[in-house]
């Protein structure tokens, strides 16, 4: 793993820039600022807003800049310039049942961040690969394109919380920003342009500012000294190594013991970029918004069911540190930290990131193995992330019309969706196992797999349970109504590689929809596969979804369908009854499921899914198993399959982490260096073993 040192906000142009430079008096600096203001640029600069407190503020006049320039570090980073705390992504108009959408403003004012320290100027460059991998976040990219940095070199760290040199940020900013200002001994500023944009900025400096340039040798010596002033506190490679080795250590509990689960650390941070997608209507007008979010909030990963993969403060703090110093570097080859120290200064609970990093450095194994990330998978290739062709906005959905709907089970409904624009529908393609984001426009989006098969053209289907805000709103829609769809997203099941193999499908409850797509595809290509066995269970017979298909599949002789429903509780309320849960459902041998004799006349059983899997006695040789359902069921089924001889690499399942963007941007689905929305949701049991286990 090589971690690149971040040097400039615009590396592509830096090399080519012919440097121009000048010496500026304090008064000259003010005149330069006036000239920039006159040029209608938006200028953000540190301003003293209260005694001892500076903040980035938009300058209306030059005067306030004098109060903040070079004084401490503003409390908040300037990240709102590239990532505002709330940003409109889509305009929604609702008139009765008619819905229309439009892109918001995509033009951003040229902005100069004046007097930023190198640690703030380093941030956009660090985030660029995230906002630009595979799909491009036009909001970030356009804002960044219109951003210029006039950086002020640090001669001394602001305080003990600064650790830029430990994360590869140069406090002297030698190659940093569009223009670098270095305060010289005589109180003048040495201004150097590093980019063509910087040269343009310097070009407006009044010509009378001609003073001798500093002697290059002296400048180099000073820089060396200033760099040395900012002590290196830890080695980031060693920290990454220690993070890998000490995931489960009790120290995380200690380190996060005071945490109050707020978002301060993430919100003051120049590089924290996780966001929430939210929609709100006001009368008939509404917005989809991108809002700051933080992995330290308990709600960040909590599923609607209440299950939370990161339920406590320790696991959330561990995620924050790992994401910055291990996962993000593994994936994007950059540390997700500029060493500004803001989280240490602002945390209301006094958590101490730097102390934690120093401790991790000390814990690092002596011989650092330069291991590859636990999982380094290519993002789903082949099918580009879908976005309506006429817009650069990746958060803009296709509009779909509900062509038909079907009640599957209590609270579970299937929608058949057709593209409002048939052209888009004609071009649309996906692979089995992929998912999409279905939007009840004005309420939000929910993640469901595409439950139909790609062999069915012209429409897609989804099946969902009404659980929370969005799914309830989706349930209120009727045939003819409009909803939004983004997708297809994520990877898919390797149905091509499975040719010639036996397939065992195992599903529980609402876990059948993702498998239905695969199964439909494989049945359409029946000759390509060996035996096909399906084990599907739900709480009661009413909760089984796709009852019509189940009836058809039950009759097919080229596949073996086995259904089960849960045991009913004993009459005395303690334990489970040995009896059938409902009429017509034959109990299996609960204590020794494999001893149950199954026959083809009786396909309905009383059992838990993993037990029925054991009873089916699946052949492991030349077979793959595909498992979907609630996390507990998946866990026990994998155990049951292991006992039947299935190696973990032949067991496929889907991870259903909470998702928002589906595009590998919002950070919500991140586990280890993997974004489940892009590199998943399909994983083998073996791959899941290798992921950090907080899912």
């Amino acid at each position: 793993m090589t971690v690149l040192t971040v040097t400039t906000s615009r590396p592509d142009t830096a090399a080519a820039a012919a440097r121009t430079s000048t010496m500026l008096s304090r008064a000259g600096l003010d005149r330069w600022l006036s000239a920039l203001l006159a040029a209608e640029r938006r200028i953000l600069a540190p301003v003293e807003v209260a005694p001892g407190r500076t903040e980035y503020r938009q300058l209306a006049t030059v005067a306030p800049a004098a109060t903040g320039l070079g004084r401490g570090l503003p409390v908040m980073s300037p990240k709102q310039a590239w990532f505002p705390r709330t940003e409109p992504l889509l305009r929604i108009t609702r008139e009765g049942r008619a819905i229309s959408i439009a892109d918001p403003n995509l033009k951003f004012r040229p902005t100069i961040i004046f007097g930023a320290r190198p640690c703030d100027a380093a941030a956009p460059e660090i985030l660029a690969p995230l906002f630009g991998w595979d799909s491009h976040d036009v909001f970030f990219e356009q804002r960044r394109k219109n951003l210029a940095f006039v950086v002020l070199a640090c001669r001394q760290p602001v305080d003990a919380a600064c650790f830029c040199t430990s994360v590869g940020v140069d406090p002297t900013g030698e190659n940093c920003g569009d223009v670098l200002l270095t305060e010289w001994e005589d109180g003048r500023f040495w201004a150097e342009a590093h980019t063509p944009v910087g040269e343009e900025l310097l070009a407006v400096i009044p010509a009378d500012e001609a003073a001798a340039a500093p002697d290059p040798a002296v400048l180099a010596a000073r820089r060396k000294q200033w760099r040395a002033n900012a002590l290196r506190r830890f080695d980031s490679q060693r920290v990454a190594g220690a993070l890998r080795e000490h995931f489960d250590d009790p120290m995380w509990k200690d380190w996060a013991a005071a945490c109050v689960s707020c978002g301060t650390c993430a919100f003051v941070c120049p590089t924290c970029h996780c966001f929430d997608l939210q929609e709100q209507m006001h009368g008939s007008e509404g917005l989809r918004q991108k809002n700051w979010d933080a992995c330290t909030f308990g709600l960040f990963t909590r599923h609607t069911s209440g299950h939370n993969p990161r339920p406590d403060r320790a696991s959330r703090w561990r995620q924050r540190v790992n994401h910055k110093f291990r996962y993000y570097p593994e994936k994007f080859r950059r540390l997700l930290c500029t060493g500004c120290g803001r989280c240490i200064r602002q945390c209301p609970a006094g958590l101490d990131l730097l102390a934690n990093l120093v401790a991790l450095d000390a814990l690092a194994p002596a011989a650092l193995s330069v291991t590859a990330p636990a999982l380094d998978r290519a993002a789903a290739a082949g099918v580009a992330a879908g976005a309506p062709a006429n817009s650069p906005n990746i958060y803009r959905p296709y509009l779909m019309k509900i062509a038909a709907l079907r009640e599957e089970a209590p609270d579970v409904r299937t929608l058949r969706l057709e593209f409002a624009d048939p052209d888009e529908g004609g071009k649309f393609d996906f692979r089995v196992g992929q998912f999409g984001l279905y939007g009840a426009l004005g309420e939000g989006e929910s993640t469901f797999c595409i439950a139909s098969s790609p062999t069915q053209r012209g429409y897609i289907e989804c099946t969902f349970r009404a659980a929370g805000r969005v799914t309830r709103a989706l349930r209120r829609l009727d045939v003819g109504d409009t909803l939004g769809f983004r997708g297809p997203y994520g990877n898919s099941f390797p149905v091509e590689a499975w040719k010639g193999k036996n397939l065992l499908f195992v599903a529980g409850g609402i876990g059948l929809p993702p498998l239905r797509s695969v199964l439909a595809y494989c049945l359409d290509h029946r000759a390509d596969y060996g035996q096909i066995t399906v084990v599907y269970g739900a709480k009661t017979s009413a909760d089984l979804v796709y009852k019509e298909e189940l009836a058809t599949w039950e009759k097919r002789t080229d596949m073996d369908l086995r259904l089960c429903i849960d045991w009913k509780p004993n009459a005395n309320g303690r334990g489970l009854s040995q009896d059938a849960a409902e009429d017509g459902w034959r109990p299996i041998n609960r204590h020794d499921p494999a001893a149950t004799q199954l026959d083809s006349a009786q396909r309905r059983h009383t059992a838990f899914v993993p037990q029925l899997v054991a009873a089916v006695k699946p052949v492991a040789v030349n077979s793959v198993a595909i498992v979907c359902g609630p996390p507990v069921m998946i866990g026990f089924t994998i155990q049951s399959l292991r006992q039947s001889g299935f190696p973990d690499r032949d067991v496929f399942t889907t991870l259903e982490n909470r998702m928002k963007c589906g595009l590998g941007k919002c950070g919500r689905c991140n586990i280890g260096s993997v974004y489940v929305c892009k590199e998943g949701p399909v994983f083998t049991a073996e791959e899941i073993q290798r992921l950090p286990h907080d899912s």
Partner: protein
Amino acid sequence: MAEVHLPLQDSLQAASPAVPGSLEPRLVAFVCRWCTYAGADLAGTSRMTYPPNVRTLMLPCTGRIDVAFILRAFLEGADGVLVSGCHPGDCHYTAGNYRARRRWILLRDLLDTIGVDLRRLQLAWISAAEGAKWVKTIQNFTDEMRQLGRYEPMQRLAADFTPELALADGQPNGYAALPAAAPVAVHADSPLGQALAQALQAGAVKAILGWKKQATLGRPQAACIVDPQALVELVIPPRAGNLARLFKHPEIRQIQPIGVITRRAEALAMNVLIQEKQLDPGRVVAFAVDGAGHFLGLADPPGALKKIEAAEASVPPPDPGASTTGLWAALDRLMAQPREERWAFWMKQAQKCIRCYACRGACPLCNCHECLMDKNVPQWFPTAADGPGNFAWQLIRAFHLAGRCIGCGSCQEACPAGIPLGLLDAAMMRSVWKHFGYRSGMDPAAAPLQSDFRTDDRAEFIL
């Protein structure tokens, strides 16, 4: 009568759709089903006429009319909100209207503090027999709102908001940050150090809640100390949050008995927790210390407060009624300004909020299992750090702490945006003192203010 049979959330949207350009005021009435709704019905069946501007939403009882409903109605574009139910003594559920009245008293003062025009919120008792009173109330309210015009400042909340205002606003917040002083170390041979070590070694407590110094900047960090060896790390900061907030964590609540280094702020907060049945006083050993960190002895939390009060007798406790120093002086200055200025001041403050919820996390009493702002079925308020969302959050926080906030200042100290949250809380403390002679945290045996009532609570503002 225009009534809407939708979930409350949707009814609110339906009740006050944005009609750009319309000058007619839009009014929302929340009424109790047993009295006012029946009264309005009577007016209807008696063919009495009244302006069509009002949308009526029926609730089981005025006791059910959450402050969130009222705020939401304003945010949806209502120009005036009427709340009405049974006359005192007539509540179908005995005392729902008395409890509601307490809330209205507090809400009115809160809205007044932030500069909401109180004429926009009308409260009334209208019985099932008073069809004529309903008609007259609506008529008068509509007339008055016609005169006042649309409630522009409220309706511009969303439009006036610029997401980058924290960057764009050049104004300092005009309210100095709380002073920070250096933490005092707890020496092993000091009376406190000895008492802590003894209690921990003897098993009288299983752990001690106290403060450590963060390594990097020496900022205070709350700690739960189990190992007597670690006691040397303890310090007592003059401010820095409130240790009682740690009781929000299940793993801390499980430790019993537990020792708490108890300053005035912790004692007051624990008293409120005891009062609200969130803390068992028998399981807490308070190590009382005065403002300078001197040990005053062991007690239960109420006892600790008494010791501290006695020791600090020379320092008069802030009197929400009369004190003219510090926070109270700032509040006086604010309240001396015209309403429009107060509104402008608070909207500027609300604009700065980034919705980090540090204030909520740092507060020992913000302890809802699930915060209203985190609930999304229904989604009462925007989670975005935008105009309406921040307005709602600031008000909901202050209101839910009215009669509970003990004034420790943890929220304000935590706020990275420099919002003077304590000022809003102080306004509520003063209101609570003025109307009910109540100071929170003083008496763990008293009934919590907002769930209590008196039949002679103020009522002159109710029609």
